[in-house]
């Protein structure tokens, strides 16, 4: 039975967040942080949540997406603003697509733990390829602010790095949610959930598990690439390999998915909200100690609430009139 009503809840949450961010002085920054983490969780959830496979190289996809945009804006400035931006999005998608096809093509032949092991090297591998091969500026990265100001003027640059970047990220975040909902309602989603529960049984039932996993992996990776392009390159106007391949984003994304509830639509939203607000205020209260607090939190969630908040709520709502709105 197709049920798209949880999207109502999703869009409502975004509307409230944007209203709070725009209406209350000083709230836009924390709200954008929340939306960034929701997007990061939502994109990872499409793969990790639906298949039960862990992608330890997740942040590398945000990284290549960020590089795709930075290369277009930094090296093809002569094209003019709109073509360069378009090229940036195309490159971000293309790079994420290539990396996910190569990594997925090799690693998805493997099951469970072996897949996770194969992805451990992906992030380090790409980072050190850029650093060691001195590609795209090597360790000095790509700094765009000067280039953009010179080519398009300070006003346009400010517009790009504030309004455009934020709007782009919100679009990507909502798009990830809509895609998640679509997958949950489609043949693909049923197949993925079947293979998450029992891969051999799913295979016997005629599900092409390799192909299904690959599709989920590529979608998740491309969305991650778009997040990198908007939330990092456009917003910060610089890209450094040490920053965009920082493993803590992989950890954060996993925490968000697990906290909210893997394989649900609203899980990453709830997880992202809790996580980002926690992080925002923890950073103020205990600078530099977020990971120290998060790691035990993740362990506790795994041990005590393996279904996450939304998994728990969905169970509680079953049979009530809210049932259709939670998933």
């Amino acid at each position, binding site marked *: 039975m197709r049920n798209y009503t949880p999207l109502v809840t999703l869009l409502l949450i975004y509307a409230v967040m944007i209203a709070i961010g725009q209406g209350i002085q000083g709230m836009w920054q924390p709200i954008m942080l929340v939306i960034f983490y929701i997007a990061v969780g939502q994109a990872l959830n499409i793969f*990790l949540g639906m298949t*039960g*496979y*862990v992608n*330890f190289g997740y942040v590398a996809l945000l990284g290549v997406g960020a590089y795709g945009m930075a290369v277009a804006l930094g090296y093809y400035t002569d094209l003019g603003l709109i073509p360069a931006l378009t090229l940036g999005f195309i490159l971000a998608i293309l790079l994420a697509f290539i990396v996910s096809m190569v*990594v997925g093509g*090799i*690693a998805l*032949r*493997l099951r*469970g*733990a*072996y897949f*996770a*092991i*194969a992805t*451990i*090297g*992906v992030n*380090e*591998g*790409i980072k*050190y*390829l850029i*650093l*060691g*091969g*001195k590609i795209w500026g*090597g360790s000095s990265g790509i700094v765009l602010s000067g280039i953009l100001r010179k080519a398009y003027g300070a006003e346009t640059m400010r517009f790009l790095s504030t309004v455009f970047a934020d709007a782009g990220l919100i679009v990507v975040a909502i798009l990830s949610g809509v895609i998640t909902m679509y997958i949950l309602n489609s043949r693909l989603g049923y197949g993925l959930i079947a293979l998450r529960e029992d891969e051999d049984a799913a295979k016997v039932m005629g599900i092409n598990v390799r192909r299904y996993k690959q599709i989920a992996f590529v979608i998740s990776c491309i969305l991650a690439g778009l997040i990198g392009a908007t939330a990092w390159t456009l917003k910060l106007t610089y890209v450094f390999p040490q920053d965009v391949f920082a*493993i803590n984003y992989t*950890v954060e994304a*996993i925490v968000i998915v*697990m906290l909210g509830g*893997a394989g649900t639509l609203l899980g990453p939203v709830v997880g992202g909200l809790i996580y980002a607000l926690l992080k925002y205020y923890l950073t103020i209260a205990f600078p530099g*100690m977020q*990971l*120290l607090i*998060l*790691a*035990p939190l*993740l*362990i506790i969630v*795994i*041990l005590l609430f*393996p279904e996450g908040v939304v998994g728990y709520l969905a169970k509680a709502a079953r049979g009530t009139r809210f049932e259709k709105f939670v998933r």
Partner: protein
Amino acid sequence: MAFVEQLISNLLYGAILGSVYGLATMGLSLIFGVLRIVNVGHGAFIMVGAFIAYWMFILYGIPPLISLFLAIAVGMAIGLAIYMLVVKRLVDAPELASLLAMFAIGIFIEEFAKQIWGADYVGYSWEIGGVSMLFTEVPFTKLLAFASSIVIAAVVYVWFRKTKIGKAVRAVVEDREGATTCGIDVSRIYALSFSLGIGLTVLSGVLVTLFTPVGINVYMGGEYTLKAFVIAVLGGLASPWGAFYAGFIFGLIENGSYTLLGLIPGVEPFGLTRFLSSVVLMLVLLVKPTGLLGGE
């Protein structure tokens, strides 16, 4: 031929370093073999060992070879605590849960260590002279690390082969239910194997410091996690002995390729060898997921 001399001395160095790599991976393979749990936080335990060596040397002047005993004791205690608190509940849980839990434990240890020891790079130097071999001078400290790795691996081997409890561990690896039927307390074997696995890993961290004069840092583990997985996969993942031999192979590949990559102008060979490690990992998994050495 300066290049050939350099290559040979680098390969020699690679074999010496490889023995330590092998030892550093045995714990990972032991834990996977017995509990089917992948210790994704592996590198953090190597870091703990490195800091034990550093502090014992700096504070009390105790040479690293003596610290080895302390390291295995501390490591086994940490391992037992983690088993009791977390891993025990996850042995039969889905892979996702144990993978993420080990990942979180590794991060927790790193962050905890950062609160105590700070984020700076530290190091010590233990000068006891060296010996000239082939084209290069090899310090005694590295030879000692080489010898201790082999001795420790041999002790573990004998323990597995000859003692009753070692046999029980192998029985559990072979067949969990069968071992239970034969009266083996499987949960005790789990606790022992996990704690020994962590103990060996922490211990290998002490030997690692003999190769990285100023490379001791709370985040040093990430590099070794990646290397350990390449080695473990080369060795068949579930076999500590396979891992030990694969360590040598990896040491040779790494140091050999470093020399060769240094010939390419305009690149930074150190970074590229790390890129190469992840490529090797992928390729081995692609070609022969059961490991080049095919397990035991």
